């Protein structure tokens, strides 16, 4: 197990030490909180959405380096994207953008994908659209 965790990619370490988009958007248009303190990971994604497009995305994360880097990378990936494009950003895309994650940390990128989905669905339901997760 330990073999790999000590071998975070440089990209993970970069996003961990210099996280992009850290913080919380006041009066956000969409909010997604996922994870569970018992598991040691909680992510809170906040979005500013204008004309169906994510114009700003921020995160707050309680978790390991992989969780922080995944949040940071995920918010980077969805900024400027339409909601449909952002929805299509998979955990694999996040992990690949980070030059890979150790096997036991892949769930962090899954959490990031879930956080984005939850924030978009929050926006959708607030605007009378059905949640896509339920589809």
């Amino acid at each position, binding site marked *: *197990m*330990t073999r790999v*965790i*000590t071998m975070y990619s440089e990209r993970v*370490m970069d996003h*961990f*030490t210099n*996280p992009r988009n*850290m913080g*919380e958007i006041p009066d956000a248009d969409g909010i997604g*909180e996922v994870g569970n*303190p*018992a*598991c*040691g*990971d*909680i*992510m*809170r994604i906040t979005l500013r959405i204008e004309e169906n497009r994510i114009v700003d995305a921020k995160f*707050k*994360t*309680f*978790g*390991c*380096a992989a*969780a*922080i880097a995944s949040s940071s990378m995920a918010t980077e990936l969805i900024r400027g994207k339409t909601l449909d494009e952002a929805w299509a950003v998979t955990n694999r895309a996040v992990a690949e953008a980070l030059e890979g994650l150790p096997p*036991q940390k892949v769930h962090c990128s899954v959490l990031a994908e879930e956080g984005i989905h939850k924030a978009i669905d929050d926006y959708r339901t607030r605007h009378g659209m059905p949640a896509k997760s339920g589809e």
Partner: protein
Amino acid sequence: MADGRSRSVYMDHAATTPTRPEVVEAMLPCFSERFGNPSSIYALAREAQVTMEKARGRVAEAIGARPENIFFTSGGTEADNWAIKGVAAANRKRGDHIVTSSIEHHAVLHPCQALEKQGYRVTYLPVDGYGLIDPAAVEEAITDKTILVSVMAANNEIGTIQPVAAIAKVAHDHGVPFHTDAVQAIGAVPIDVDAMGIDLLSLSAHKFYGPKGTGALYIRRGTRIGTFMDGGAQERGRRAGTENVPGIVGLGKAIELATADIEGRNRRIVEMRDRLIRGILETIPDTRLNGHPVERLANNVNVAFRYVEGESILLMLDALGIAASTGSACTSASLEPSHVLTACGLPHEEAHGSLRLTLGHRNTDDDVDYVLSVLPRVIERLRKMSPLTPG
């Protein structure tokens, strides 16, 4: 955050220690010159044997035992496996129940779990908020099928020192042998197997400035225990395998140095420990000390920071040149929160947010100052990132 790599502060001595130069020096001739196999009968082998027996004497002396009751192993894990599985196998007809604690090292817990799969029953005793085991609970747990009580002398994560003598007495009152994992206690707590009533004791050289891969099991004469490693007649037929002579010589030297004047040697470390604990609790809010405030290893600091996660703390400290741990080294990659901290009653997220700093003889007051100067910033930074942080 500034890269502190120029600075290097090692505060993870519970995970492992650097081998002391005197110890390495004692080992060196055993590799290429006095390299004989102690089981052979010519002069070269006799030399190896004599140095090995000298080391055995030193280990014995350090714990108040006789040399013939010391058996060298490949480390603490092997000693624990041997003690637990060896006693279980040799006493199967007598009983099938083991009493241990919920905060043992995995080297004790996992052999116990392996035995459970074979039909043995194991009681994992709870601990109080400080990580202490109540001897009365041991008394209650013992049945007429109990064949072993195993409670560690000092915990590797929170540093809590157990009332070993009292627990041993309870075991003996019921005719049950007592094993203690003293891997963290050697060099930190005076040990006397007779005075404390210890029948089996595990130790590991790399925890007290000796080499990795060498340890020992003390077995009181008459204790019913099977073999664990079968093969050649080494160690009086009780532990097979060509002896790791350099390692054993290193163990002997290291334990001699570590157990001479324990209190005096640790005085400075205790001072640094207390300054670290005080400094952290005073400068960082929402922080608490894990483990016992007094019955505590001289070198152990373990604090829970609310709202942040341990691995992130470690990696940020590493970037600043500080080596620390979140729990036992073996589990620092695990997703599970520490079984020790949860047994002490910490909620999961605080268990996830705990930091262990364990001091050593190379540490200086400057090191303490440095940690105290950067740690608040690290915690603050992570808390700013955390959705759990209030306000």
